[in-house]
């Protein structure tokens, strides 16, 4: 009676594969881009139980069927957003080339994903805190963090604000609401929740924005952060950058086909929004909704931003080895810079000519920032005093680093 082993089992190990590999036909037909329930904007104070469909819809403003989510941003701010996104792209292209020229060891781009770094940076407050991924240089750029300082960090030179200790782009910028990055993916997601709980504990209304890549949602950290956020109603915005790829691994290895990353919110009793991540206004609107909810004491929101990693994973990567070369061209949500630009032009608030002029200005700025940084030095040509290597392990040095510093003679 207990033996139920049937012969000729239909079981087999199932390993998901992407629609296309190099040489194949790129397609995103398997992904739903329907607005669904998100055609409406619910009250940010609505109970979670009524919001469970939002994780399957799509929040859109630009090109969306409804305008419920339109955040009503003035043209000045839209231009600021456009400028920051364009600046980010130019900056990254330039630094990518600097890497190819041997000026640093490593670099990463957020090409095609700039709205996700820039819009929250402009939307959130000076005393809110972002717990970024490495694809959010746009946050710093939108807040006018000095480009020269960024480049000094990338070059690990004598003026590097992180004193040569960190891999390029693993910035820390407390005064700009940008928490210390590290090479490990996922492990700061829970810090956002703890940070937000501390804010709530003091009765402050500062919120934390935690960001994570879609591939990284598979880490235990993701689950633990959401569990704590749900239970203690942390005023945190927990967001997923779903750019379809995790190095060479497609998103079907992070969550099965047919489900969405936003729907993962359901199990934690918090709302989940699925958002057009290449729509500056939709990103802004979703962050604004979640921030309002958090500041109203209603706790955390999970947001999935749909986007596409148009660039390689990093300077160490060659994406043509694992995905069709023209895949980016098939991405249905377009490019965030182009879309916002077109919107502003349509509003009569921008023109090709102004755009060209802006790009020229930005390029000039960048060039002089780079020149200034290179006057200090590139990787290997210049670095902080070696003695500083021994600082900051603890607040006060102990005998080990004191002895070792002496041994090294610095």
């Amino acid at each position, binding site marked *: 009676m207990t033996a139920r082993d049937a012969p000729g089992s239909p079981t087999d190990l199932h390993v998901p594969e992407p629609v296309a590999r190099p040489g194949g036909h790129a397609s995103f037909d398997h992904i739903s881009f329907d607005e669904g329930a998100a055609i409406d904007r619910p009250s940010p104070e609505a109970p979670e139980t009524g919001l469970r469909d939002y994780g399957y819809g799509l929040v859109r403003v630009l090109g969306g069927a409804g305008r419920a989510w339109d955040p009503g941003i003035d043209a000045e701010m839209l231009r600021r957003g456009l400028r920051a996104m364009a600046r980010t792209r130019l900056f990254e292209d330039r630094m990518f080339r600097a890497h190819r020229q041997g000026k640093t060891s490593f670099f990463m781009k957020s090409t095609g994903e700039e709205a996700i770094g820039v819009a929250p940076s402009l939307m959130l407050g000076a005393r809110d805190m972002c717990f970024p991924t490495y694809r959010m240089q746009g946050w710093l750029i939108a807040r006018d963090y000095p480009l020269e300082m960024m480049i000094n960090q990338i070059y690990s030179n004598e003026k590097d604000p992180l004193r040569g*200790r960190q891999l390029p782009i693993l910035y820390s*910028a407390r005064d700009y609401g940008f928490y*210390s990055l590290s090479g490990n993916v996922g*492990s700061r997601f829970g810090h956002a929740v703890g940070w937000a709980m501390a804010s709530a504990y003091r009765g402050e209304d500062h919120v934390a924005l935690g960001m994570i890549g879609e591939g990284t949602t598979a880490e235990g950290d993701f689950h*633990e952060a959401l569990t704590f956020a749900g239970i203690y109603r942390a005023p945190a915005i927990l967001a997923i950058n779903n750019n379809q790829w995790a190095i060479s691994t497609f998103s079907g290895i992070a969550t099965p086909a047919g489900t969405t990353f936003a729907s993962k919110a359901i199990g934690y009793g918090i709302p989940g929004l699925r958002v057009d991540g290449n729509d500056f206004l939709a990103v802004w609107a979703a962050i604004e909704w979640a921030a309002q909810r958090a500041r109203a004491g209603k706790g955390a929101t999970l947001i999935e931003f749909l986007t596409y990693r148009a660039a390689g994973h990093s300077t160490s990567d060659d994406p043509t080895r694992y995905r069709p070369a023209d895949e980016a061209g098939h991405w249905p949500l377009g490019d965030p810079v182009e879309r916002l630009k077109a919107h502003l032009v349509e509003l009569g608030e921008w023109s090709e000519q102004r755009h060209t002029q802006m790009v020229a200005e930005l390029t000039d700025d960048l060039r002089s920032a780079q020149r200034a940084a290179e006057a200090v030095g590139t990787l290997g040509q210049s670095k902080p005093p070696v003695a500083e290597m021994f600082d900051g*392990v603890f607040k006060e040095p102990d005998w080990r680093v004191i002895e070792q510093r002496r041994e090294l003679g610095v």
Partner: protein
Amino acid sequence: MAVMNMIQAINSALDVKLADDPATLIFGEDVGYFGGVFRVTDGLQQKHGIKRCFDTPISEGGIIATAIGMGANGLRPIPEIQFADYILPAFDQLVSEAARLRYRSNGEFWAPITVRSPYGGGIFGGQTHSQSPEAIFAHITGLKTVIPSTPYDAKGLLISAIEDDDPVIFLEPKRLYNGPFNGVQGQPLKTWEGFAEAQVPDHHFTVPLGQAAIAREGADATVLAYGTMVHVAKAGIEESGVDAELIDLRSIVPLDIETITASVSKTGRCVILHEASSFGGFGGELAAQVQERCFWALKSPIERIAGWDTPYPHAFEWDYFPGPGRLAKALARVMENR
């Protein structure tokens, strides 16, 4: 001044800090209403409110991640991990985040957290309620590790740890919670009553991190120990009849290297005692340091007495636990070389 056992002393340290610093917060599995499975946080929620001392999900990684985030936002969290064996799911948070945050951000962010956790055997806890994981923390640059051996030190060191701006692993020798223990099973249980080290002031005081205590002065050999093993060492020295100096390290990072080298330079012999399994244990570091610094003074090889290189076995607890007899034999061996 009152007589406190180690549980009461730790509770008192927490109580003092909750009262004097609104940035302190205690959380962990069962620490809130219930007061902890060892009763260490008993009464603190009732006294200081649910927001100061509360229960968490069973998620050690989440507990430490939350603590780090709070620490980065101006609080001074004191998370509890129910047993030191269960710190492992949080190991990445401790190593990759808590320990590295200050250095990598050039001091913009840091993690002033104190992770309390009962460690060690002697209570028939079996493989996963008995381990001593200090060695894997000692190797991590950026973590401090503190292990008291008396109620007085427990309170004073814990207050220092909480007030320290770096992450501290505070390991509590659970076998000493209710009384000192000399490592010989089957004797009547002792309480802390009547021991000078159990006279603990009610108010705020500190014992600094990184200063060892000379628990017994002696001329002929040096014994290095911490936590439960300090008491075992006393018994072992007595059993051996050797005039050994006993150093209670109290914190292994920062390590009081001066007290250690001064003692071994004087005695010329050294035995290291810990409960964790021997291979790759903290005894290796101690032996390496001692022979580097006191080589010419040494009259005998440095001996390590430690747990065997097996998991901690339930039925064989007293065959595994390094008792005073093994120390006494080691002292006799090192004394053979005059």
